[in-house]
């Protein structure tokens, strides 16, 4: 690796061009390892003999250029850049005996291994795809004769199935109300929750019905439940001193108004 120390700024014009082409085409890369692999080709050596230091420099300049061109790089490209910067410093500085962890050479060797392995997988993929393939180079039977399946189905059930089935039907009514009717019940809690934020604006007498929740007024069952809950909630709010309530006569509309504390101080 020592001879790589002096290669800074020694990129040929062709290499610079290649690096620039990389920038323009950053979308086409399958991640930082892919960029590194592409960059490594400029070294024109066996991947086993690659100069990781030089590669790190190339990558860092790639990232710098992307930055100056304001190309958004995905986070993993930047993580790789940070790691390579770290690796570069490890490779350049004399090893510090007090420092823990792997040496720069070990890290570089691993990166070289990763690149070589990725390249090997690419080559393997290419060889695989170039094989004779079913449906392209060789063929299966065109007129497959289906196996006639002579299937006799017999159905079965046990006495227990039968009894459980019957039990299921006969007990269904017992608990239907719990499941079925809940969605037509509007609770006082729900009504309270709905009314509390609204009453602050009720300076004038307003009809109770205007506090009814949406979607609860068409179906009579739901309307009944919602009306009762809204009415109960109104009484609760009156009790708490937030509302005033009035009804001019029997069956007349019930009206609500915010209780004005200045006008009518609480007792």
């Amino acid at each position, binding site marked *: 690796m020592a001879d790589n120390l002096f290669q800074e700024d020694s990129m040929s014009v062709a290499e610079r061009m290649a690096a620039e082409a990389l920038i323009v085409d950053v979308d086409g890369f399958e991640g930082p390892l892919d960029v590194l692999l592409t960059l490594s080709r400029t070294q024109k050596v066996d991947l086993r003999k690659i100069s990781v230091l030089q590669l790190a420099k190339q990558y860092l300049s790639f990232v710098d250029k992307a930055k100056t061109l304001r190309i958004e790089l995905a986070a993993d490209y930047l993580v790789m850049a940070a790691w390579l910067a770290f690796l570069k410093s490890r490779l350049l500085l004399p090893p510090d005996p007090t420092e823990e962890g792997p040496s720069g050479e070990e890290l570089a060797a691993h990166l070289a291994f990763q690149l070589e392995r990725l390249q090997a997988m690419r080559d393997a993929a290419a060889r695989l795809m170039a094989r004779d393939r079913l449906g392209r180079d060789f*063929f*299966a*039977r*065109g*007129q497959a*004769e289906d*196996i*006639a*399946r*002579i*299937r*006799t*189905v*017999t*159905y*079965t*059930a*046990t*006495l*227990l*199935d*039968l*009894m*459980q*089935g*019957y*039990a*299921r*039907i*006969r*007990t*269904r*009514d*017992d*608990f*239907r*109300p*719990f499941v079925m*009717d809940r969605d037509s019940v509007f609770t006082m809690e729900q009504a309270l929750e709905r009314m509390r934020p609204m009453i602050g604006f009720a300076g004038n007498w307003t009809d109770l019905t205007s506090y009814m929740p949406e979607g609860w007024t068409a179906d009579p069952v739901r309307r009944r439940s919602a009306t009762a809950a809204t009415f109960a909630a109104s009484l609760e709010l009156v009790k708490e001193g937030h509302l005033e309530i009035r009804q001019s006569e029997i069956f007349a509309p019930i009206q609500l108004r915010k209780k004005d504390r200045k006008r009518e101080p609480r007792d």
Partner: protein
Amino acid sequence: MSQETETDADSLFDAPPMGEQERMVEAVLFASAEPATVRDLEARMPHGCDAAEALVRLRKRYEGRGVRVIKVGDAWAIRTAPDLGFLMQKETVETRKLSRAAIETLAIIAYHQPVTRAEIEEIRGVSVSRGTVDQLLEMEWVRLGRRKMTPGRPVTFVVTGEFLDHFGLENARDLPGLKELRAAGLLENRPPPGAVPFGSGGGAEEDEDEGSIGQPELFEE
């Protein structure tokens, strides 16, 4: 044998040897989804091939084998030898669980017979599909009873001797009533105590011996 026919003056290359032509015909007949005519074959093969001759040879080669080259109309195909047809069939007896709808319908018929379709629907709370009843009829677990003496004189359903056989019952009266089902833990889906809001509460008790109320009518015919 004249695989090097030079009758066609245009042919720049010799046709492949007959052995090759035979291989080609074999591969095409194998892979194509439809029987192929001599013309189809020659259209695919290199110029100057004699598919008819190759077919004659191929046919001979397959004589007595597991598959044969046969003529279908004016086209050719490879087909299983007729004596091996038995290999292409697979007999399976499949045992399936009766569907939930069928079990419920069957249970209602057993407990309430003779019962009309309308009654079954009322008890199940959903309509009973034709297929469900047909299936039970076909299995011979259920048959038609006599018509009910109510308006429209609807048909009724009752269970059969085969049904009793299958379930090991001497007669439908042996079916356990609701009380027993509950004692056996088959009715554990009870509502939590004290939480029967809308009137239906008493229903369970009343229902209890409905099964047996229906029973005396069994097999009256």
